[in-house]
């Protein structure tokens, strides 16, 4: 951070991009951001989820729906998961164990020793990989819950792992689930298996347009998962899951609110308007944290973050004063300095605009070419920034594909 050493620019005047880049070298910014990002990732911890179920019951599809496309092979034909796989998300927030599907021909001994080995492995890793929750999948159309299922769940409970029974591929009939799925759920619970909340969670991870079946039940499953995992991994789970963006948004909002408040305090001493926009360390830390919440891969996050200095240049052309007029109740800017309220508002808007960029990236809406130097990204950021300035610190949802 070299705020003090930089040449200050006149308030309200048209400032060239060159001047801005002198104020804010992109390289310095990127380096600062990287360091903050690294720290955010290392502090977040990891949630460990283990998924069980018969071969072909839809474990991998469920995982991909909730955590993004991390299990590559959901195929036809042979059992695809030949051995239990541990996926560690590259942002480090998730350790996911996709257990080998229980096939016919593997006896209880093999199934249980496989399970024991998994648990032992996870404990061996210094307690870091302790399994926080097990999803036990049962396909509704199997219409069976066998003795070996009961024994496996009891074994999991014996290891102190909370078990959530997930019924997969369940069709909805109107606003209720299929009668047979309901009967199966009742039958499972009547066996007295020690499952979370004495409930079976009916889901359909992948909508089937051919049958006209919608996706459903994933949010409920996630909510239940939040309930059973320890509080300290909630942040990691929020970051890891790629399904419930409301949770990500509210986590981001908290971060933004904290940063804005901090900027308000920091904004008390006079700071030249344009240079303050993107230079406060709290802002960079905020951006890193938001990137972590949205689990943006490291390199990609760095690439995206470069949009901010670019924005600085654009703002310079537009004129900071006209921009600041957008802030409700900011009042006239006196003597080239801004007050605490303005500083907080700008930080908040920056955070909101950045969260929007991160969310769209997490949803895969950006292609590999939409990064640095692309006007689309810049104009998105700018418009979000302007909106957020006039609206206050609320993350825009207008582009939400669900709503669209």
């Amino acid at each position, binding site marked *: 951070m070299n705020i003090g050493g930089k040449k200050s620019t006149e308030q309200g005047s048209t400032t060239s991009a060159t001047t801005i880049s002198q104020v804010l070298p992109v390289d310095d910014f990127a380096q600062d951001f990287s360091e903050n990002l690294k720290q955010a990732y290392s502090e977040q911890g990891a949630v460990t989820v283990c998924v069980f179920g018969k071969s072909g*019951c839809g474990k991998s599809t469920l995982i991909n729906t909730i955590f993004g496309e991390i299990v590559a092979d959901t195929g036809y*034909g042979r059992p695809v998961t030949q051995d239990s796989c541990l996926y560690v998300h590259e942002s480090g927030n998730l350790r996911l164990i996709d257990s080998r599907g*229980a096939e*016919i021909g593997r006896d209880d001994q093999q199934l249980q020793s496989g399970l024991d080995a998994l648990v032992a492995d996870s404990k061996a890793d210094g307690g870091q990989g302790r399994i926080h929750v097990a999803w036990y999948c049962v396909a509704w159309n199997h219409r069976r*819950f066998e003795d070996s299922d009961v024994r496996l769940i009891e074994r999991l409970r014996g290891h102190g792992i909370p078990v959530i029974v997930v019924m997969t591929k369940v069709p909805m009939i109107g606003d209720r689930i299929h009668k047979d799925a309901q009967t199966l759920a009742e*039958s499972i619970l009547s066996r007295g298996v020690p499952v979370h909340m004495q409930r079976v969670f009916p889901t359909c991870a992948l909508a089937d347009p051919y049958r006209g079946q919608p996706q459903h039940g994933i949010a409920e499953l996630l909510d239940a998962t939040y309930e059973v995992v320890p509080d300290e991994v909630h942040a990691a789970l929020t970051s890891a899951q790629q399904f419930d963006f409301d949770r990500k948004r509210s986590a981001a909002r908290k971060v933004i609110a904290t940063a804005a408040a901090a900027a308000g305090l920091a904004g008390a001493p006079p700071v030249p308007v344009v240079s303050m926009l993107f230079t406060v360390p709290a802002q960079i830390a905020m951006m890193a944290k938001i990137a972590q919440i949205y689990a943006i891969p490291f390199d990609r996050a760095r690439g995206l973050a470069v949009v901010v200095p670019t924005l600085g240049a654009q703002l310079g052309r537009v004129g900071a004063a006209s921009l600041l007029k957008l802030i409700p109740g900011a009042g006239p800017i006196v003597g080239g300095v801004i007050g605490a309220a303005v500083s907080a508002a700008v930080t908040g808007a920056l955070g909101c605009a950045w969260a929007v960029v991160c969310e769209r990236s997490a949803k895969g809406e950006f292609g590999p070419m939409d990064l640095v130097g692309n006007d689309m990204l810049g104009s998105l950021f700018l418009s979000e920034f302007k909106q957020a300035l006039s609206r206050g610190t609320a993350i825009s949802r207008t582009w939400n594909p669900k709503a669209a």
Partner: protein
Amino acid sequence: MITMQLPTSQESANLTGWAALSAQPDAETTPFKIAIFGKTGVGKSTLINAICGHELAATGIGEPVTAAAASYPVGPHGTVIDTVGFETGVGTATVTADVQRFLADQLRECAARHIHVALYCVRADDTRFEVLEDEVIRRLDAHGIPVIAVLTQGFSRNGELHPDHIQMCGAIASFDLPIWTGRPIVINAGADLETGAEVFGMDLLMQAVAECLPLGLAAAARRERRASVDAMYRTASAQIETSGRLAAKKDGCDLPDVWADMIAGIGSAYRIDGDTRAGLVQGVTTLFAGRPTSLGVCCGSKCASGCPESSPVSPTVTKSSRVSRKVRRAACDARRAHIRVIGEAVRDSIDSCVRAREWNPSDDTLLDLSTVVAEFIEATAPSGWFADAESLVQEQEGTFVSRRRRLNTRLAELIHLGRSAHETESESESVPDPTASSPRSGQSAGGGPIGSLRTKFHRQSRTKRSA
């Protein structure tokens, strides 16, 4: 062989289950049996109810429903078997052993009660086909049972399959399994009132069953015939054993009678009628007449070719030589071995005829059996029959060499005499080197004490002859 007319698709389009099968003229009159296999909960019992047209088999949700295999009637003579579904938590060895036991049980009875067609069910939505399922299908195929792979609980709309099912069919087809047409048939056997999924594919499935049925019935008939030939083989073997024991007791001079009885016995074991059997005995006797074995035991005193002695180690010889009981027993063993070797040659030649040509033993239009036997023995005897007899003698004579050298020498001499008599008869007059021209003595010349002795005697006789 039962032939069935295949229904055209228009004819059978609206038919399901038995209604479709009964469209076949012979399904009404021919007993048949269909067995249904698959994991638990794939809908085997539902499929059976669809085939039978009634709610016969219990279906359910939760714990496995079908605890033991059960059969249900289809039409007037058909049966369909609901098997116990494969469950997880049971080892591969147990599963395959259970399948094997079930099949052995089913295939024990007469052909009409064998399994004629097997349906292997996989849930269409599972998108998995496990290795153990291959194994079950291959086992069924190994028994000659036609297997139809069925994807159950499928979904079809306006006559078009769910795209996922089409992919699954392609994946299974790529496994190159021994299944009918190489591809599974997608069906939905039970309508789902909740989702509105309709029953479909039953007509195609029943058409496939109708196509497989003749194959399955033929395979069952083959299996039954094979089992009956196996029984014949066992009877013939018992006859050989009895005759062998008899020969060991009997005087060497009566050997031809034992022999004739044995061949007649083998013939009747294979249900060869009187005249043919007599012809067989005659033919085989002629075949061996004048053919001394390595022991010099030929067809005995009735031999027309003038063998030097009917049986060199006959009780008369041994008594006069005052040999020990051991030598006498060796002679008995040799006679038994001789009878056995001939008996087995006859048995195996008839057996291979019966199996290879799928010849019905009770068939009157029988080819000349003794010719077949002769061909078989000609083909196998030099390497099989004579070698066996020789190695047996060699084995027993290992003790003679060490303990009773003189007797041993005498025996070897007799063997040589018997052989050279045979050789001189079969070979042309001008033979420069007997060891080279006779492949049998050439083979055995090098090995064992008896071999070297024999070579020695060969040389002696040659010198005598040349002198």
